[in-house]
């Protein structure tokens, strides 16, 4: 009987210590959200400036650039999946992966071969377990991605894109379009997995497309529109990747904070339940002891001859 009480006490003890861990992780995530959001905000001027410049070139010049033109035939599509390095963030990585699977299935239906690029240990493990081929993988920075990480990914993607997938070029085939599946940070309570197409470009944000009879402002390009695009587009891709990584990091922290809060609350409920059960077990034990004593006394009284 005393054994049951001891078991409940042990459970209470372990649940309480887990609760402390959950609490600590929740606090850490909370403090990091603010930092991650600040990083998103800080990178916005750069992204905005680049987007505006790319739109300007695309709108105000008739430069035909490999990165802006739609390929006639799309054979291979790159899919960049941004997941987290660590778990304990609820359905964060799972929902990104689900979205990625949906995209891959859609691409297959359209007769395109999806090529996977994965960021984050969770995604890498997911594809490795299913023995899927992953073209390239990166990990170790999902919580605080730096610009250099983004540049590495951006350069790899652009290089694949420039190579194109036409077999007559010989050698390794590249890709014809690039999709990014990542989580966009909408608010502290809403983060949504999203699919965006990076290349070929479909920008023109903030710049009105000029009507046919309107004279274009005379934009001067130095050295030439093509060279400017050459220099701009890899930077634009990198900046988009950077932004996606930063938003994903903020979302990851928010998801983790929420998951840890729920876990902490559950732990509290468990502790309450086990406390009740322990009390019950104690009461039962006391009652039984009294019953035994009374029973013993009665038996003694009945057996004495007086």
């Amino acid at each position, binding site marked *: 009987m005393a054994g049951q009480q001891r078991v409940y006490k042990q459970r209470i003890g372990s649940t309480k210590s887990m609760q402390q861990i959950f609490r600590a992780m929740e606090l850490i995530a909370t403090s990091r959200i603010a930092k991650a959001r600040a990083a998103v905000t800080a990178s916005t001027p*750069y992204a905005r*400036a680049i987007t505006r*410049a790319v739109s300007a070139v695309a709108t105000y010049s008739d430069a035909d650039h490999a990165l802006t033109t739609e390929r006639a035939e799309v054979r291979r599509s790159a899919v960049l999946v941004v997941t987290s390095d660590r778990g304990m963030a609820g359905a964060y990585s799972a929902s990104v992966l689900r979205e990625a699977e949906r995209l891959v299935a859609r691409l297959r239906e359209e007769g395109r071969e999806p090529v996977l690029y994965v960021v984050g240990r969770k995604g890498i493990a997911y594809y490795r377990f299913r023995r899927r081929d992953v073209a390239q993988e990166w990990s170790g920075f999902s919580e605080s991605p730096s610009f250099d990480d983004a540049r590495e990914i951006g350069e790899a993607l652009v290089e694949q894109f420039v190579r194109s997938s036409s077999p007559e070029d010989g050698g390794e085939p590249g890709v014809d379009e690039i999709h990014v599946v990542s989580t966009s940070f909408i608010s502290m309570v809403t983060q949504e997995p999203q699919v965006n197409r990076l290349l070929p470009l479909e920008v023109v944000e903030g710049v009105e497309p000029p009507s046919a009879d309107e004279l274009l402002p*005379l934009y001067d390009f130095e*050295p030439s529109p093509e060279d400017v695009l050459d220099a701009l587009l890899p*930077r634009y891709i990198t*900046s988009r990747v950077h932004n996606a990584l930063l938003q994903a990091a903020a979302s990851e922290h928010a998801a983790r904070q929420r998951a840890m809060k729920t876990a902490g609350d559950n732990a509290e409920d468990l502790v309450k339940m086990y406390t009740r059960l322990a009390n019950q077990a104690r009461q039962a034990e006391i009652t039984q002891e009294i019953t035994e004593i009374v029973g013993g006394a009665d038996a003694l009284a009945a057996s004495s001859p007086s």
Partner: protein
Amino acid sequence: MAALNVELVSAERQVWAGGASQLRVRTTEGDIGVLPGHEPFLAVLVDGEVRIEATEGESLTATIGGGFLSVDHDRAVVVAEDVDVQGAAGSASR
């Protein structure tokens, strides 16, 4: 005279923003000075110095590692991946 609205932006943050009377950068073709009223302009920059003559406060000199400059309606944006600011303004922002 209208002032030029200058922004100096690096990958991770905005380094400097404000009014300026002149902006000097080095493009792939050579040094160029931008005054208020400049025509719309987009140029690729090479490693070199950016000099901003601010209308208020101290002028600013920064070393950048490649980037580009866009000018549109007296709004100039210098975008660079690595920005290293010298002088008084630099200590505050780095």
